[in-house]
């Protein structure tokens, strides 16, 4: 599904990602973890096309996409959310989804939009102005809904669960499982909560200082001393 080979990203003199490599198969839910500043969002930006890698390959369904434009990757079936929600300004919630569908999926299917609105519990907000009239959690759901509207096969979720209290979080995890099933998605999720990763993901990849320091089943990964050190080290700092 997705394969990264020695991806390196620099901002000026700063190395944000160094030789990042991993691969994932269709249908996987992969947890991407690491302390703040480890390069998780940069990795998402690199995969989705906001940031160009200095070197290395990014293959999506065995196709090199490292040089492709942002919008072209979206059309291939690569959806993502932003950690800080970025609704399309001056558009209603429904228009947000319509634009995503028309341009991302290349078709207009109002029934499916309604379905996504239902699934993401946004139906009652459909006609509101997305940028100014939604609460934060609604905006986060809109982020996912927009990505879904583009008919993705791979979905990159950036801290969509942050800020939820535990019951809501459990419900949301169930929701993500449902989406995974219903739309046959492959998911990469950035999440700080180890428990969430353990329950949701079949696999975890840990980044620290822009490098992959562990990759495997969540329970194994979180017992890895290097991972523990990176976390506690950061926590102490």
């Amino acid at each position, binding site marked *: 599904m997705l394969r990264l080979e020695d991806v390196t990203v620099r901002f000026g003199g700063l190395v944000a990602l160094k030789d990042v490599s991993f691969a994932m198969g269709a249908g996987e839910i992969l947890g991407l973890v690491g302390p703040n500043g480890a390069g998780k969002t940069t990795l998402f930006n690199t995969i*989705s*096309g*906001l940031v160009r890698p200095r070197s290395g390959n990014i293959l999506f369904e065995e196709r090199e996409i490292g040089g492709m*434009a*942002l*919008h*072209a990757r*979206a*059309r291939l079936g690569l*959806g*993502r959310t*932003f950690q800080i929600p*970025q*609704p*399309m*300004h*001056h*558009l209603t919630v429904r*228009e*947000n989804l*319509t*634009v*995503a569908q*028309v*341009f*991302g*999926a*290349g078709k*207009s299917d109002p029934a499916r939009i309604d379905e996504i609105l239902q699934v993401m519990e946004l139906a009652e907000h459909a006609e509101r*102005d997305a*940028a100014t009239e939604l609460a934060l959690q609604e905006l986060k759901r809109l982020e996912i809904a*927009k*990505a879904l*509207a*583009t008919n993705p096969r791979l979905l990159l979720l950036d801290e969509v669960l942050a800020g939820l209290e535990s019951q809501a979080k459990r419900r949301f995890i169930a929701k993500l499982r449902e989406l995974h099933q219903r739309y046959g998605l492959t998911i990469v999720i950035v999440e700080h909560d180890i428990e969430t990763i353990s329950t949701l993901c079949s696999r975890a990849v840990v980044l620290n200082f822009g490098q992959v320091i562990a990759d495997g089943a969540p329970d194994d990964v979180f017992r890895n001393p290097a991972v523990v050190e990176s976390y506690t080290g950061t926590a102490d700092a």
Partner: protein
Amino acid sequence: MVVKNLPGILLALAACLIPLVYGGNGYIMGLMVSGLIVAGVALAWALLGNLGGMVSFGHAAFFGVGAYASALLSAKAGLPVPLSLLAGGAVAALSSLAMLPALRLSGPYFALAILAYAHIFKILATELSWLTGGSAGFARFPVLPTIAGIDFSSRIGSYWLLVVMVGLCLLAYRAVKASHVGTALRAMAESEDATRVVGVNATLLKAWMLLLSAFITGLFGAMNAHIINFLEPDYAFSGTWSVLPIIAAIFGGYRTILGPVAGAVAIYLFDQLVAKAILPVGHQIILGVLLAGMILIAPNGLFGLFGKKKTGAAHAAA
């Protein structure tokens, strides 16, 4: 529905009434014709500004290219004038392809890059004298024809033709704005990354808007050429064709569809009938004051204020 379309209906009504009242007055009709030419360019300018999010200081480039293309095609290739007008628009659109690299530039740089193109085109028109007649000008090309008994080269004839053309361009603008493309462009103005990440090819859509804007501008440039029937580079690429539409669109409200058109006619008549009477020399100073005042007090234009109060329809004006 009627209330929402009220400004449009009023404008259409006014357009029909003017020839009834002033039809016999060649001078007023001449001013109206010139005003409508500016209106067409202002519409095209506002389309690029509002939908494409790009301010241009060089629409004279398209105006001049359209004018020369139509004049040359009708005179040298024998193309009938109605077709050469469209060809003028098409060639102007084609010329805008040369500006595609400018789409990557941010606002002010785009605005001034287009100005550079206008300069370059003007110099080319001067230098390619074997084709354009150079600075000596080019006069012998056909006027607007008589079709089905209507002499379009007469003031009244050209007036109606222009009213119809402006009307069609307005409808085209409205259709684009209401389409998915229009929605995406609206989003792009302030959330470009969010829009691109769902699959919108921002550069392509902007390019289409530039093309459309260039086409409309070229079309009106061609119309003007066949009405005036004399071209020289200084006139065809004159800065006036870049400046007046900006003033008109800002005055009328470039975020609205009708604003630039109403603004153009109003500004042109005001300048010619009132400003010129007050200040025979340098009356453009009044336009300058007006433009500065509009930007400071009501950047969305008079029509923008009016439209907002009337319909409450919202966010296009942000």
